[in-house]
C-alpha cells in the first residue's frame, strides 16, 4: 500500500531484474485501538554476538538490531526490496549506475541529521567489516552526488544487486560518519530506527527505548517487512536472555515476558489451548545444515566428506532435532520457489547409503581420528542434530565426537580452521532471501566451510549477473550439483519455528526478527 513510485524506471528495471511484481500489502493494516506506552519484555535464547549490526549475521543480534538501525534499502513483507532511508532507487539503463536520493530530515539517535556523507561512510565501512560484504563486490565506487544523494558505480551490470543489497542478514545499515570511522564492534550504538539503544548487560538483557524523534517514511501508509512507515507505540522493550526453553516458557506463562522465541513443539501444542497466549507457527523458518571444515583433516578430504553425506539418514535427524516440526527437502531452495533446482541430489538425500558411505570412507585418507562436530545448546535443534549425526556416523567407522560449547564461542571457533570438522547450523535468512545468500557462503573469503572451489565462484558470478531468470536458475542448479559433489555443506531438511506471545500483545506478526514497531500492549 505505497503512496509513491520509488524506482523511477521501474518497468525497465523489473524487466531487467525479473523482480516479481510488488505485492503491495502491508504487515499490519491500519487498526484503531492501538495503546501507547508500556514496556514489552521479550525472551530470546542467547546474547547478541554484537550490536554493531554490520558485523553480525546472527539471528539473536538481528532480533535487536533491526529495531535500532535502518538500511538504504530494506525488504518488504514479501521479501521484495523497497527503499528505506533512500527516497528511491534509480538504476541506469545499463545497470552500471544506481542513484539513491535520500530521505531528508531523517535523524540519528544522537540528534544529527542523516546526509550523504553518513551513507558513504557507512557503506565504505561495510566493505571493510560487513559480515556479508560480498554484496558490495560489484560496487566500484560510492560517490556523493548531493547532500542527500549517493550514486553507486558498478564494475559490471549485476541484475540481482538490489536484492542482495536489501538483505537483512548482516544489514548494510547507515550510522553516523564519525561512528563509521571506528573499527568493528567499537561504535556507539546509534541508528535511525524507531527504537534506540539504552543498555546491554551480557547474559541478562538488552534494553531499547522509543526514539521520540523518529522520522517515519511517509512514502508508505504503514509498515511492511523491515521497511515502510513504522510507528512506535511501546515506550521501551527489554530483550531478556533466557537460554533454557523451559525457563522462557515459564516466564511467558507467569507474565514476566510477553513474547518468547524458540518454543519447544510439545510446549507449543499445550500452550495453544491457553487463551492468555498466542502461539505463532512459521513452517519454512530455516534449513538445517551440516557444514564441513575444508581446512582440517579429515574433512579436508572430499571422499571423507562424501562418506559423511552418504551415511546420513535425514528423517531421523530432522524428527529429533525439530521435535517433529520439519519437512524433508533435499533442495537448497524451498519447494515452489523460483530457483528451486528440482531433483538434483534427491536420490543421495532421501536415505542413508551405508555401503556407498563405507566405500567413500575407504577411498579417503581417514585413519580413525576424531571427527569433531561443533554445536551449541542455545539452539536446541543444533545440539540435537549433532548428537543424532554423531550416532549415525559411528557405525560406518567414523570417530564422531560432539563438541558442545555456548553459541558465542561456537561463532568464534567456526571462523577458525582449527577445533572443528562439522558444524550444525540452521540457516534461516539465506534461503528466505532466495539463492544469493546460499550461494554467497560457498564462494569468496567468507565461506562457512573455510575454503571454496572454482565452480562455486564461477556459478555465483553467473547467478548474480545472469540476464534472465533461466540463466540464473541454471547457475543455481550448477551450485546445487556442486554441493552434492564436493560437500561444502549438507542439507538435512527444513525446520519450522514456534514463537509465543501474551494475548495482550497486539499487532504482532512473525517475521525474520520481532518488529517492535506497530505493536502494542493492551491493558
Amino acid at each position: 500500500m505505497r503512496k509513491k513510485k520509488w524506482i523511477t524506471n521501474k518497468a525497465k528495471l523489473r524487466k531487467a531484474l525479473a523482480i516479481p511484481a510488488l505485492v503491495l500489502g502491508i504487515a499490519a493494516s491500519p487498526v484503531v485501538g492501538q495503546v501507547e506506552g508500556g514496556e514489552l519484555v521479550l525472551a530470546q535464547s542467547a546474547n547478541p554476538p554484537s550490536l554493531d549490526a554490520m558485523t553480525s549475521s546472527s539471528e539473536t543480534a538481528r532480533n535487536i538490531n533491526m529495531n535500532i538501525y535502518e538500511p538504504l534499502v530494506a525488504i518488504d513483507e514479501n521479501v521484495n526490496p523497497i527503499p528505506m532511508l533512500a527516497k528511491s532507487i534509480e538504476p541506469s539503463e545499463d545497470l552500471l549506475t544506481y542513484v539513491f536520493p535520500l530521505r531528508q530530515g531523517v535523524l540519528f539517535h544522537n540528534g544529527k541529521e542523516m546526509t550523504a556523507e553518513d551513507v558513504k561512510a557507512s557503506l565504505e565501512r561495510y566493505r571493510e567489516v560487513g559480515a556479508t560484504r560480498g554484496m558490495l563486490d560489484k560496487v566500484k565506487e560510492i560517490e556523493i552526488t548531493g547532500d542527500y544523494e549517493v550514486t553507486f558505480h558498478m564494475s559490471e551490470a549485476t541484475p540481482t544487486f538490489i536484492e542482495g543489497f536489501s538483505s537483512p542478514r548482516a544489514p548494510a545499515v547507515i550510522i553516523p560518519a564519525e561512528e563509521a570511522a571506528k573499527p568493528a564492534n567499537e561504535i556507539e550504538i546509534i541508528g535511525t530506527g524507531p527504537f534506540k539503544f539504552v543498555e546491554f548487560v551480557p547474559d541478562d538483557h538488552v534494553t531499547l527505548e522509543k526514539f521520540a524523534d523518529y522520522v517515519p517514511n511517509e512514502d508508505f501508509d504503514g509498515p511492511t517487512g523491515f521497511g515502510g512507515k513504522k510507528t512506535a507505540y511501546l515506550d521501551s522493550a527489554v530483550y531478556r536472555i533466557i537460554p533454557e526453553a523451559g525457563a522462557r516458557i515459564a516466564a511467558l506463562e507467569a507474565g514476566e515476558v510477553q513474547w518468547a522465541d524458540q518454543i519447544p513443539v510439545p510446549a507449543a501444542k499445550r500452550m495453544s489451548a491457553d487463551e492468555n497466549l498466542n502461539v505463532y507457527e512459521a513452517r519454512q523458518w530455516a534449513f538445517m545444515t551440516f557444514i564441513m571444515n575444508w581446512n582440517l583433516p579429515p574433512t579436508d578430504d572430499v571422499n571423507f566428506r562424501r562418506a559423511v553425506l552418504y551415511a546420513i539418514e535425514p528423517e531421523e535427524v530432522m524428527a529429533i532435532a525439530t521435535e517433529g516440526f520439519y519437512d524433508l527437502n533435499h533442495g537448497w531452495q524451498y519447494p515452489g520457489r523460483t530457483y528451486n533446482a528440482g531433483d538434483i541430489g534427491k536420490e543421495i538425500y532421501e536415505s542413508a547409503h551405508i555401503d556407498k558411505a563405507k566405500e567413500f570412507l575407504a577411498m579417503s585418507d581417514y585413519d580413525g581420528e576424531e571427527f569433531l562436530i561443533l554445536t551449541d545448546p542455545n539452539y536446541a535443534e543444533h545440539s540435537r542434530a549433532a548428537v543424532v549425526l554423531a550416532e549415525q556416523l559411528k557405525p560406518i567407522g567414523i570417530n564422531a565426537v560432539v563438541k558442545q560449547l555456548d553459541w558465542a564461542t561456537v561463532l568464534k571457533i567456526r571462523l577458525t580452521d582449527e577445533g572443528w570438522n562439522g558444524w550444525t547450523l540452521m540457516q534461516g535468512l539465506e534461503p528466505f532471501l532466495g539463492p544469493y545468500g546460499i550461494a554467497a557462503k560457498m564462494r569468496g573469503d567468507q565461506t562457512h566451510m573455510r575454503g571454496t572451489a572454482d565452480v562455486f565462484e564461477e556459478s555465483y558470478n553467473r547467478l548474480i549477473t545472469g540476464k534472465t531468470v533461466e540463466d540464473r536458475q541454471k547457475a543455481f542448479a550448477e551450485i546445487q550439483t556442486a554441493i552434492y559433489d564436493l560437500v561444502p555443506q549438507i542439507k538435512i531438511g527444513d525446520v519450522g519455528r514456534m514463537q509465543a506471545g501474551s494475548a495482550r500483545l497486539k499487532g504482532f506478526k512473525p517475521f525474520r526478527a520481532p518488529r517492535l514497531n506497530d505493536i502494542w500492549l493492551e491493558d
Partner: protein
Amino acid sequence: MTAEAGVPDISATRAWVARLKLGLGTAARHRSIQVGGVLFGFIVLLAIFADLIAPFDPNKNNFRALLSAPDAVNIFGTDAFGRDILSRVIHGTRLSLLVGLLVVVATGILGVIVGTFTGYVRWLDGPVMRVMDGLMAFPGILLAIALAAVLGPSVSNAALALTITFTPRTARIVRGSVLVLREMPYVEAAKACGASHARIVLKHILPNALPPLIVQLTFVFSVSILAEAVLSFMGVGPPPPTPSLGNIIAEGRSYIQEAPWVALMPGIAIAMTVLGLNIIGDGLRDTLDPRLRNL
C-alpha cells in the same frame, strides 16, 4: 589409654587399631549402615552390571518414540531422542559413581598427604594451610565450573575439578587428627624408642586418623555425585550423548510439564544414591566416633 609417668604404653597403637576393627565390625551391625548399604549396594550393582541390566543401548535414538510416557517397554519412558530413560539412568548412575569414586580416591590420597605433612611437620603447617584456606574460600562449584570450562567438559576433568574442590576440607580434617595424635604418649614413646618419622606416621598416627577420614570421604562421595550432576546439568560435565544423571535432568527440564518423567527419573536416582551414602556416613560416624558411640 593410660600411661604411667615415664612408662609409655606402646600397646596403645594396637588398641586403636583394634578399636577401629571393632568399630567397623560394629558398623556392619548398625541399622543405618545396613539400610544405607542395601540402598547404595543396589545402586552400585546397577552401575557395575549396567551393560547387562540396561534393557536398551542408552544412546540408541528412536524418532518414532519421542517423549513416550512410561509403559511396559520403556519402564521410565523415553526422552526427546526416543532413548530409553531407564537405560540412560542406569548408565548415568555408573558415571556418577565413577566420578564419585575417582574424587574419593584422589581426595583421600591428596588429603592424607597434605593433612599429614602439615599436621606433623610444624613449619609446613602455616603456608600450606593458608593455600588450602584460599582454595576453601573459593566457592566449590564455581571453581569446578571454571576448571571444567578451561580444561573442557569431560568425566576426568569434572573429577579433577571436584578433587581440587574437596581436597582442602579433607586435608584439614586429617591435619586436625594428626595434630592431636602426634602429642599422644604412645607417639612420644615411639620417638623415645628411636622410631623413624615415617614409621611413626605410617604405623602410629595414620591408622588412628582413619575414622574421621572415612566419615569425611562418605560425605565427599555423596557431595561429588551431587556436584557432578550440577556440572552436567550446567553443560560442563561429560559431552553428549554420554548419559549422566545431571545431563538427563537438563535435557528434561524443557519438557517438565509435557514429559515430567524425563527429569524425574534421574532425579530419583540421584536422591537414592545420595541418601544411601548419607545414611551410611551417619552410621559410620555414630560407630567410629567414641563420643557418639555410647549416646
